[in-house]
């Protein structure tokens, strides 16, 4: 008897015991004389169900999870049918059924290093079409799709590509920003671990579009499994002739600095320098890596390009709302019952996502706030939960969507402490180039301490300091740290009352 099973090797699944389950499956199969073909996939993104085992029956994947080693014998006993952890058809699970998976269509479905499976599931169609197009036509297609930078800044990807296409230079570069440092975000990691060929294809298309023969992925060192899987995918791609002829990609690894996620600091880091922020202009599109014209795009921006080329801009832009077109991989994290990655058209409200899709908090206590867009993003109280998740919509509500990570806090969260942490984080990670960030973050911590100690003069000083940081910082680290600080203060003033009084 032979048996094919699918089990993720995504870091989150590994962290929840996937390798132990894999070993138990192999042991049990061997003891029963079953020829087991265990295909290790990426993750579907339903983190609360990991490790999520799947078996295909009549063309439909059925799931079991979250699995423990002790479940394995029983699974074999019941021939992978009835089991307390049986979830039924995986794609009918509401969390997955409600999604629109364009960028993450293959993630969790295929072996991430199986190029044939990638092609069989729609991969490489975008690149094949791009090869028959003129560079300007590819750029026009991406521009028409409405794709905007998924790293957070939301700059139209096609416009950036057009600038690089028109820039003069014998050597141009495609740099993929995989320095996904924002807390609450893991879409880049999941894609690099679960569908690395999708990023490679997107970068190859970008290379054709702007006339760049060299690509670079700068991945943070905190992602050892993404580095390993993506590195292996590069080898497979070279072996298959997908890379190496006219376009190749090298993988660079960061060294623990958050600010290197800022594009100019990233370029300095790639050049072997301290990861300090550069003043703009010149834009990286004109003078980027080694002073040459460079596209710097986030992983998800680049990984969205293959489906845009394959399906056409019109299909992609038929999703979304306003100026936020296409889909966005929302990442729901922190104190959440059903957390993970949820790819949907822009426009879903925070309430629908957190309450309906994700089932509220993991602790079962009421939701107090969500922080959207990482450590530089604003805290949204429940009263703002009707805000639709889009670039302009989050901006209008006093925040930013950023890389679309959403961290849930229950009512035990202390927003005064979270505001102080925002300043502390900025102080730890500041590159030191500009004064508002370098000095302001430290003074910000001290000033919040004074507020919490009941100093009546301190709130005005904090407001002034935040204005200076916002208007005077060179990049988003100092410039956006006021978002979490001021939103916490605005929406949760009671958490900034003098601590002694609160105790009385």
């Amino acid at each position, binding site marked *: 008897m032979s048996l094919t099973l699918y089990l993720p090797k995504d870091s989150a699944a590994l962290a*929840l015991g996937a390798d132990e389950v894999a070993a138990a499956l192999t042991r049990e199969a061997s003891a029963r004389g079953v020829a087991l073909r265990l295909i290790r996939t990426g993750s579907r993104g339903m983190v609360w169900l990991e490790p999520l085992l799947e078996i295909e029956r009549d063309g439909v994947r059925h799931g079991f999870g979250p699995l423990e080693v002790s479940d394995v014998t029983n699974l074999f006993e019941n021939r992978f049918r009835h089991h307390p952890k049986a979830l039924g058809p995986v794609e009918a699970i509401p969390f997955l059924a409600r999604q629109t998976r364009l960028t993450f269509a293959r993630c969790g479905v295929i072996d991430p290093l199986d190029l044939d499976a990638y092609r069989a599931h729609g991969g490489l169609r975008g690149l094949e079409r791009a090869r028959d197009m003129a560079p300007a036509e590819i750029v026009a297609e991406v521009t028409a799709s409405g794709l905007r930078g998924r790293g957070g800044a939301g700059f139209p990807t096609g416009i950036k590509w057009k600038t690089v296409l028109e820039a003069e230079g014998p050597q141009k570069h495609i740099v993929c920003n995989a320095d996904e440092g924002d807390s609450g975000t893991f879409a880049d990691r999941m894609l690099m671990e679960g569908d690395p060929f999708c990023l490679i294809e997107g970068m190859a298309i970008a290379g054709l579009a702007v006339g760049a023969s060299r690509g670079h992925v700068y991945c943070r060192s905190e992602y*050892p499994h993404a580095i390993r899987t993506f590195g292996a995918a590069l080898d497979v791609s070279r072996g298959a002739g997908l890379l190496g002829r006219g376009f190749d990609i090298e993988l660079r690894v960061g060294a623990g600095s958050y600010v290197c996620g800022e594009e100019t600091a990233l370029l300095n880091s790639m050049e072997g320098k301290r990861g300090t922020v550069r003043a703009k202009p010149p834009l990286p599109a004109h003078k980027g890596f080694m002073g040459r014209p460079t596209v710097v795009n986030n992983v998800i921006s680049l990984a969205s390009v293959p489906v845009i080329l394959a399906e056409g801009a019109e299909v992609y832009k038929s999703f979304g709302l306003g100026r936020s077109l296409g889909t966005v991989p929302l990442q*729901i994290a*922190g104190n959440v019952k059903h*957390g993970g990655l949820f790819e949907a058209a822009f426009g879903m409200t925070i309430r629908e996502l957190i309450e309906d899709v994700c089932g509220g908090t993991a602790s079962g206590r009421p939701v107090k706030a969500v922080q959207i867009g990482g450590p530089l993003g604003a805290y949204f109280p429940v009263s703002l939960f009707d805000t639709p998740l889009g670039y302009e919509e989050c901006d209008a509500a006093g925040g930013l969507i950023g890389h679309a990570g959403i*961290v849930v*806090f229950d009512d035990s969260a202390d927003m005064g402490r979270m505001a102080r942490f925002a300043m502390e984080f900025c102080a730890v990670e500041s590159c030191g180039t500009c004064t508002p960030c370098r000095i302001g973050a430290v003074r910000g911590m001290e000033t919040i301490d004074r507020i919490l100690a009941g100093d009546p003069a301190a709130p005005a000083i904090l407001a002034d300091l935040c204005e200076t940081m916002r208007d005077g910082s060179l990049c988003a680290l100092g410039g956006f740290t006021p978002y979490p600080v001021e939103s916490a203060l605005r929406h949760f003033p009671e958490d900034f009352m003098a601590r002694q009084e609160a105790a009385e």
Partner: protein
Amino acid sequence: MTREETPNALRAREIAAAHAGMDGPLLPVLHAVQHALGHIPRETLAPMAEELDLSLAEIHGVISFYPDFRTEPGGRRMLKLCRAEACQAMGAEALGDELRARLGVDWHGTTADGAVTLEPVYCLGLCACGPAALVDETPVARATPERLERLAREVTG
């Protein structure tokens, strides 16, 4: 070069020379030296500087900028505990306090027996199953102080 070099310095020179053709080779070189030697000893700076045509100050500046690079040996295992917001929402602050007490070290410290170095990190991308940690390259979800201490103190093969 006539002066006798230490084995560490020679190794660093070899690594740097092997990377010298890259655009911006310094970070890959520092990673490779740290991987080979466990840390970046002072005596490796001069040979790297020579091979890469950089000043000692430039290399020192880069090493000191990035949290990953260490100029002193660390413990046999590296325990990275996430302190970022998503993990804080699941109790990372208290976990960090208890872990530091159990190990008898502060952040960046190495236990007296040289078994474990504890480093704070700001996000491991395991934000929907926090609090999260990384023991060398093994990711840990829903971490508890007991489990982390056990994993970190497991004798390495």
